[in-house]
């Protein structure tokens, strides 16, 4: 198997599609899912482990709505000069509060999500990122959520 591009077969795809939600809260949930897929539990566990090891899955488990647990997620952006882009990327990604960071084609060319355990933590981390990078951080806190569903057909 290539180390660069993970190879998925039809069973991997069926497993990913079956596991994107509704995981049973039973004594033996993997066994229950495996039965539904017509495979045994050991096969399912081994496949899941490999999908995680090869990075096809980034995680398997509960997805928390962190705001309902007191934490905060805020989308933020910076306009980073091209010649400093790599250096600023390293500075920003070094903050443990940075959950994702994408380069996007826009004047605001760096977009990241900040996650903190308390609402007050957001302002603090924004100030520290501004100090570290010497660039303003534009924050876009969420006022309302209309739709969130990252289930993707494999």
């Amino acid at each position, binding site marked *: 198997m290539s180390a660069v591009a*993970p190879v*998925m077969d039809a069973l991997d795809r069926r497993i*990913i599609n079956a*596991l*994107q*939600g*509704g*995981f049973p*809260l*039973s*004594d*033996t*949930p*993997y*066994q229950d899912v495996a039965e539904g897929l017509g495979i045994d*539990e050991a096969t399912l*566990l081994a496949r*899941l*482990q490999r*999908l*995680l090891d*090869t*990075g*096809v*899955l*980034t*995680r*398997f*488990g*509960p*997805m*928390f*709505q962190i705001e*309902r*647990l*007191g934490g905060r997620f805020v*989308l933020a952006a910076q306009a980073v000069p091209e010649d400093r882009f790599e250096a600023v*990327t390293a500075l920003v990604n070094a903050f443990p509060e940075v959950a994702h*960071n*994408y*380069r*996007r*084609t*826009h004047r*605001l060319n760096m*977009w990241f999500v900040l996650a903190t355990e308390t609402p007050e933590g957001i302002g603090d981390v924004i100030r520290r990122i501004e100090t570290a990078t010497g660039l303003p951080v*534009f924050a*876009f*806190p*969420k*006022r*309302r*959520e*209309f*739709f*969130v*569903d*990252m289930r*993707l057909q*494999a």
Partner: protein
Amino acid sequence: MTTRPPDDLDRRLVLATQAGLPLVSRPYDVLAEQLGISPGEVRARLADMLDNGRIRRIGAVPNHYALGYTANGMSVWDVPDERIVELGEAVGRLPGVTHCYERPGPCPTGPTTSLPWSMARTGRAYWPRWKKSPPCSAAPAGRGTCCSRRRF
């Protein structure tokens, strides 16, 4: 309906499953042992957190690039306040849209009120379609502003 405030068990469950659910035959038993409660209590609490939305779902998070979703775009729309709910819900229902939020913000390119995020498997971005679709073209000053190139 009253919702109880988050408590210590919620927090300990988040920490115990942050890396994921154990890949063993009886994963809730493993968590129960770690947390010093019964497997039944673990399952009941997880069910409660699913009911009150503290857990969105229990499942797999695919790396979208590995699944072949090579394109994703983010667009920002300047939407009048009185139409935000109507348009936010309409955009959220469009195929290919994975997130749609209202985000008031000091956007340097203009006021920002709604922010859908879409993903297209084929490399064809969805946002030009939003532009043509009735909900968005009806939004005065609506415009898509961002498209992604790569992830770090």
